[in-house]
Each structure stands twice: as C-alpha cells, then as structure tokens.
C-alpha cells in the first residue's frame, strides 16, 4: 500500500523474514500507540461510531435470496480488505469493526438496513449494494443522512451522487474499448445486441449502438428478454438468419446458463468466432454456473480478470484463497468490492478525519497503486479511472487476457452524444 505505507514507516517492507516482520509490525503498532492516534475530537466531529481505538463501518449485501450467489464474493472481498487493513494497524490508528446487514435481495429491505446502519449504528462508511435497483433504493437514504457508500458493481452510469464512490465501471468504460477492439482486431462489421430487460442492459446497448453507428458499422438486431428467461432458441435462430459478426451480450444472472448452453447445443462453436460473442456480464463467478466448456471461446470486456499476472493481483488471489478456500473464483465485481475499504482508508488518512464531508472532499485524486487490477484513481465525478481488458474464456473457467487498453480510461457517467 505505497500511498498509505509512508504514514507508518516501520510497516511491512517486502521480503523480510516472518519473525523480523512481525516484530517490526509490533514495533510499528507500539510506536503508533506511543505517538497516539489523532484525538477523537479531531477525527470525528459528526457523532460517528468512532472510539479511541475502533471505527465502525457497514457491509450491506444480499446473503439470502436470488442475489446471494452474486453478492457473496463482494462480502468476502470487503471482509478480507478490512482484515488486512486491521493487520496493518487500522485507519488513523483505529481498528475497523464491521456491522453486516442482509439486504435479502429485496430493495425495501436494503433501504431499511441502510437507514439502520446510518442512524442506529452510525457507521463511518458502508460497503455494499450490487444491483442498480438496490442502489436506487438506498440512495435517498445516504443523501438524507449524509452517509458514504462504496458501490462495487459495473453499472449503467447516469448517476453521480456526492454520497457514493463507484468502484466499478460505468457503462462507457466497459463498452467502448470492447467494441473498438473487435472492430480493429476482428474486423467486425455487423452487431447483434442482446440483453436482459432492465436499465443496465438497455443503457449499455444504447451506448453500444451509438458507438457502432458512429464508426459507420451496423446493428442488425436488438432484443431483450425478461430477467430469469431461459428460452433462447428463437434468438439463436435469428443469429443464424442475420449472421452478425458479433453478438454483444448483456444477459445477466441465471439466464446466462441457458443462453450459453443453448448456443452450444445449436451448433455455434464460439471458438470459431463466427459469430464472435462479446459479453459484458459474464465474470468468472457466472462461469461457475455456466460451465467452462459451454462458454469456451467467448470474449468478455471487463476491468479485471482473475488471471491478471501483476504482483498485486497474485498477492490478492493468494490471500483470497487462503481466507476463503482454494476452489473460489474471483470476478470483476469482487475485485471492485475489495477496492472499497482501501479507497476509504486512503481518503480518511488524506482527510485526517472520519467525517463524511471531509472524506468526500479528500476523495478525488486518491490513488491506489496496490489495486489487484493495477492502478486506479478516483475521478472528481466519484468514479474510478481504470483500464479495460478483453478476456477470452477457456474451458477451465478462467479468462485469458488478450488485450489491455494502454491508458487508464476516464469515467464519464453522463456521456455526451450517447444519451
């Protein structure tokens, strides 16, 4: 944690033997205790749940109901990050304690629990939500009680709340680079847009269509299916009829299992790339359900894949597996959720305070050189600068990374010309 380590000079320098390291850790802790963390009155002027040696945060995800399967990874990532931060001495000399609440895949429950976290538990920050619907439900609560939410999912954009830090990508960050890549590398000319029927796929496809048409290329079809839909035979027939170069898919959740199985059963071999499948909704987590052999050859446009080979990611994957088991996979959102507590810690330390207003003011420009995805930076619009990568799905359920944007992509939640 280069940006934060400077504040604890005796912290974990790499490649030291374990004993020395732990001694130094203890020394660091002792020295911190001696130099005494900033006094309570200084770091907390707004009656948050901060004591001399602890600070409370909230974790708000669905651990029951239909969304539990997707959100569990985020909960694990956030807990891991909190434990790691505590092992390093905490934030402003205070250990993080978390209060976990269950949103139960039910949007009114999310609103109720967020109110509880902010009003009763007086948490300094909340890491949580997954679906757009849950975020929309809690947003007025966070704005009313001036809380801070770290939201991990890639989403449709069109939002920029002073009370949310969006650690996932907004739509343009995920889509434009992906389409540019298939146009340039795979000479794609025609596209078929397919999605589940709700705001994220619709907005994503709107942006995709505008971009494709700007490039002078053609969208030959656009279709939506209800959430949970499992019959994709008719659309597969349309693919065969219209022969698009690229199927651009934003099908979510359980529907993916049916879609890719039926695609394979209909004789479309994705490894032949005729048509090429480019998805923005299938992470390693979803492949667990779909089965690697059923999606072999498809491409995904994401900011993170578990197979990234940089040092940060290798350490992250190792720590994650040690904490949560060897057979676990890590998807794009899980990594984004892991960034939340670290970004919050960095902002709190930059602000020298837990007060939400000060943390907000300190947030733009916060950078994380230790992010598993490489390097990220908070934009004044509360989204992250990050790279987009293209992965090629393999039978083992992992993506092989075939392309990475050379530069960080600027987040643009209200893209002009794409609305």
């Amino acid at each position, binding site marked *: 944690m280069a940006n934060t380590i400077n504040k604890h000079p005796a912290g974990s320098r790499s490649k030291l033997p374990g004993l020395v390291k732990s001694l130094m850790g203890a020394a660091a802790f002792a020295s911190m205790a001696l130099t005494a963390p900033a006094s309570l009155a200084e770091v907390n002027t707004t009656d948050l749940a901060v004591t001399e040696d602890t600070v409370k945060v909230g974790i708000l995800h669905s651990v*029951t109901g239909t969304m539990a399967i997707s959100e569990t990874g985020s909960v694990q990532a956030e807990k891991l990050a909190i434990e790691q931060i505590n092992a390093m001495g905490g934030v402003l000399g205070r250990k993080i304690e978390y209060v976990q609440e*269950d949103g139960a895949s*039910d949007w009114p*429950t999310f609103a109720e629990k967020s109110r509880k976290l902010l009003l009763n538990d007086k948490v300094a920050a909340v890491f949580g939500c997954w679906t757009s619907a849950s975020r*929309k439900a809690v947003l*007025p609560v966070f704005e009313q009680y001036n809380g801070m939410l770290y939201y991990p999912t890639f989403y449709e954009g069109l939002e920029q709340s002073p009370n949310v830090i969006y650690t996932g990508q907004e739509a343009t960050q995920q889509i434009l680079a992906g389409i540019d890549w298939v146009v340039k590398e795979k000479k794609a000319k025609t596209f078929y847009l397919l999605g589940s029927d*709700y705001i994220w796929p619709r907005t994503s496809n709107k942006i995709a269509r505008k971009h494709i048409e700007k490039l002078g290329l053609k969208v030959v079809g656009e279709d939506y299916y209800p959430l949970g839909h499992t019959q994709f035979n008719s659309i597969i027939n349309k693919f065969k009829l219209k022969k698009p170069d690229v199927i651009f898919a934003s099908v979510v959740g359980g529907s993916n299992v049916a879609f890719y199985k039926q695609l394979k059963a209909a004789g479309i071999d994705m490894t032949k790339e005729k048509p090429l499948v480019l998805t923005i909704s299938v992470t390693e987590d979803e492949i667990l359900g779909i089965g690697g052999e059923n999606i072999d050859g498809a491409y995904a446009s994401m900011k993170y894949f578990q197979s990234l080979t940089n040092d940060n990611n290798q350490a992250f994957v190792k720590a994650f597996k040690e904490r949560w088991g060897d057979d676990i996979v890590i998807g794009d959102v899980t990594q984004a959720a892991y960034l939340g507590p670290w970004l919050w810690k960095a902002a709190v330390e930059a602000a020298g305070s837990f007060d939400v207003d000060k943390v907000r003011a300190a947030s733009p420009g916060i950078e994380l050189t230790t992010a598993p995805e490489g390097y990220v930076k908070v934009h004044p619009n509360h989204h992250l600068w990050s790279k987009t990568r293209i992965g090629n799905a393999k039978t083992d359920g992992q993506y092989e990374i075939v392309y990475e944007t050379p530069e960080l992509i600027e987040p643009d939640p209200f893209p002009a010309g794409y609305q």
Partner: protein
Amino acid sequence: MSYAGFKTLFPKSDLIGFAVLAFILVVVLPLGVDIFRLNLIGKYLTYAFVAVGLVLCWGSGGILSLGQGVFFGVGGYAMAMFLKLEASSPENTAIQSTPGIPDFMDWNQITELPWFWQPFHSLTFTVLAIIIVPSIFAYIIGVAMFKRRVGGVYFAIITQAVAAIMTILVIGQQGYTGGVNGITDLRTLHGWDIRTDEAKYVFYFLCVFLLFVCLAVAQFVRKSKLGRLLVAMREMEDRVRFSGYDVSNFKIFVFCLGSAFAAIGGAMFTLQVGFMSPTLVGIVPSIEMVIFCAVGGRLSILGAVYGALVVNWAKTTLSESFPELWLFAMGALFIAVVMAFPNGLAGLYSKYCEPFIKKKYNSIRANRKGDVVAKGATHEQQ
C-alpha cells in the same frame, strides 16, 4: 349511532381488544421506541391493512386470494406516481434530455409524459384513484370469477397468476413504470419534505388512524347481516344460494373491500418507505401477506394486525442478529405456528388467555355484587 347499536357493533371483549391495540400503537410504541424503529413499525402496519382485508375475504368469506400484492402495488404506485411527478420538476431534472419528466422515462428515451400519468399531478385525483382503481380492478376479477362460480383453490391460483402478470407488466414497461428499480427518490408532498423525522411521525399516526378506520369498517361488516352471510357461505355455499341469496355479489363486495384496504396500505407504504417497486407486487409478497394473516389468526381482525407486526418484527430482528441464517429461523417459526397453533395468535389468545381473564373479571364482579351467577360468558367468540 345509538348506544345500543354501538354495543352490538363492539361487544365488551372486542372493545377491550381495540382499546389495547390503540393504546399500544398510539401511546406505548411512539414513547417506547426511537423514530427509526417507529418508522419500521409504520411499515409493518401497512401490511396489516392487507391482512385485515384477508381476514374478511379468507377468514370470513372463505375466499383465499394469493394476489393481494397487486392491490397493495396499485395503491403504492398511484401514490408514488404523484410524488414522483412532484420530484421531477423541470428545475430538478434540468440535466435530462427532456426536463420535467421522471428520470427513468428519460433513460428509456421517452420524451413526453404518458397520458395516464397526467392526472397524477393532482393529489385529490391520486387519493381517489388509490381507493377506486383497485376496487374496479377487483370488481372485474370478482365478476369474472364469482359469477362463473369459480372458487376455492382455482380462485387462489388465478389471483396468483394475476400477481405474476402484474409483475411482468410493471417490469416489462419500464419506460412507464420504472421497471425493476421501481419508482424511487420521492421527496416532497405539496412542497413538504416527506423524509424528515417530523413527517415520519405524521405518517405513522396517519397510518394508525387509517388502520383503525379500516378495522372499524371490517368490524361493521362482520357484525352485520352481511358478515353472517359470509360465514354461512364459507361453511355451506349451496344452502345460502338455495335460500335465495345471490352469493357472488357478496363475494365480489368483500373482495373489493379487501383490495381497497390493501391499496390504502400500499399508499401508506410509499409515503413511509419513500419508494415503490415491483418486488412488492408479485407472488412472494402476496403469499407473505397471507402468512401474516395466518400467524395472527385468520378469523380475527385484531389478530391480523398483531400477526403483521410480530412476523415483520421477527424478520427485522432475526436478520439483524443473524444475517446469514435468519431465513431458516423464519421458516422454523412459520412451521411451528402452523403445526402447533392453526388459528394463530388470536386462537392462542382465545384458548388460553381469554378464559383466564374472563374468570378473573367475573370473580371480581361477583365479589363486588355478591352475585355468583356469571353472565355474559356465553357471547360469541371472535
């Protein structure tokens, strides 16, 4: 109403029950819990409207509706449409491609407010719509079903299908309804901020007041000839029909009444929670509402209120303490209630508590009057 009329409408034991509930809701809870918890209780009470309606339809009339969420949703959406229009003033939505329409319409490339949204600029229209639209809707379903003598399980299945259709419709027409996200970010009512603590108190007491109005109406129906006919129909429909009554009309009426109650609950839900979404319309919430009614006791209107309160309170408390295990605890609770107390909390009360209270009461009276003959111990049980 004459004193005698009042006495038949509210016999002493019922009156005590009403008074105790009123005391709990108006005095004990507002003084005993903070505004956050009180707001939650207000939310639970909105489900109690539905449960009271179900006691009339299911408990008295034997009409089991598994689609009450639809009417709850219609009421809630009507209120949300009014509030959303107020929140979407051209100044608030200047950032959109078309300012002045709700944000989700803008995201769905709709450039003009649809015609059926127009009247919701008026609060009077909205309030009338909350009661009338679901009643008409229930009337149509009722006529279609009961005139054809569809009843029992078939009726339950059809109402469930209606709930499913409604959810699909709301989610599918997201440009007009907000889709999966629902209608969110509601702020003011005629310029009055509905998110403040003060507003929460006002809505809580309004909710309690409306609940008692509904309870009084329900009590009136049960004590009237209509109520006795409903019970007769539940027990032996053919015999009532042979006696010359048009059975379907009574069923349609009570079904409409239950749906109007549900819609009032839905509107209060929107006001207190601050948004409306399709998760409250579908099959799962509809069945949950039947569970509230069953736990409270499907034969007792007051039991239904306690049922809604207890189940939801348990849900909140258990999920706060055991975020990953609470669903199992809830499941166990339901199974235990249904297996051990088929008449719910109200059954428990009338079996164990009531005789005890009555005995005490009578012995006190006997002591005072020197009269050992206990009277009034035979009047009808709830």
